[in-house]
């Protein structure tokens, strides 16, 4: 799986202001079927580590603080 080097261009974007992964939440990481999300050691927030996404949406739907946005490519909408 390709490593996501530039977080701004990946489909799953986490609003660090809203994310509470640094408080112990791991919902988005737990629900991702492709296991592409991680908690950053630096910020304690969730981020997309691997640029691979099925756009299945549970990370966005289940996030308790609405911090996760999945940007679905136009042709898949």
């Amino acid at each position, binding site marked *: 799986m390709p490593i996501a080097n530039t977080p701004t261009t990946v489909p799953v974007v986490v609003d660090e202001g809203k994310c509470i992964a640094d408080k112990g939440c791991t919902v988005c990481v737990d629900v991702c079927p492709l296991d592409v999300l991680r908690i950053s050691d630096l910020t*304690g927030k969730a981020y997309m580590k691997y640029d691979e996404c099925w756009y299945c949406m549970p990370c966005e739907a289940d996030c308790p603080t609405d911090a996760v946005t999945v940007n679905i490519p136009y042709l898949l909408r």
Partner: protein
Amino acid sequence: MVFEPFEDENDLEDLDARLSDPDPAIRRVAVMGLADTADPDAIPLIARAVADSSADVRLQAAIALGEFDGLEAATALCQALQDTDSKVSKTAADSLAELKDPKSADPLLALTNHEDAKVREGALLGLKQLRRPDALANGIEGMKDPVTAVRIQAVGVVGYLKAEEALPALIASCRDDDPEVRRTAVGALAFSKSSHARDALLTALMDEHWAVREIAAEVLGKISTTGDGGPLIPLLDDPYWQVRVKAVRSLGKLKVTAAVAKIGAQLEEQTSNLRKEAAAALGEIADRSALPFLEDLVDDPDPDVRKNVRWALGQIE
């Protein structure tokens, strides 16, 4: 400080300690962890979070309690239902609707007369699926509520109980000012075989709202006896195809031979679902006078219609 994720989800003590943390986000995550344990011992801890100072924590507690059942969870949810934050009370109502243990009804019964309509609505919503016979009086009382949303839920409570003694109240609700209340009440009559219920259904067939006529056509098909569907025939001229679909379905089920020509005319409709149901109904009636209508449709562009046409032809021949 970065908190480690919960490695041991069964560590209630650790989660309990986090519930007292000054940071509301940590308390919120602790509530999520308590729900994940699925341990009934976590219910009193989550119930404590229902009174948290942060609305986010109370909201998470209302979601978490939906994972549990029984009197203790229901009592906490009833408290959340009365929360001043509308998101919390709405979520509590949704969680109450998930309860299955009849014992959960006790605290709900006390709230059907609450001064806040949202609380009354949520309590009745929770009571509906619990099917407690002693909720009948609360349901009947709720059917006279000035708030429409409460009356809808009250009709649901009474309808689920399928009690003959509630028939007069249900029939009265079939004349309610609100079409959704009338629709729910008409649907709730399906359990009764009484002539009063049948009369109310016949009146509902002429209701001004199409959704009421639609459900009346469906229910009449369920409670009538074979051949006894004559009053449904005029519904085949209804301007709404949804009503015609239900009428066709019921007429087929009741094998109303007098309706064959008018059902046959539905086979020319643009809505393929209507053509499909009409073909099935003609097959159920199995009268030879339907053959010319069906033979015209053996090459219908919709495969479901073709399937039903062939089945119907087989039934007749």
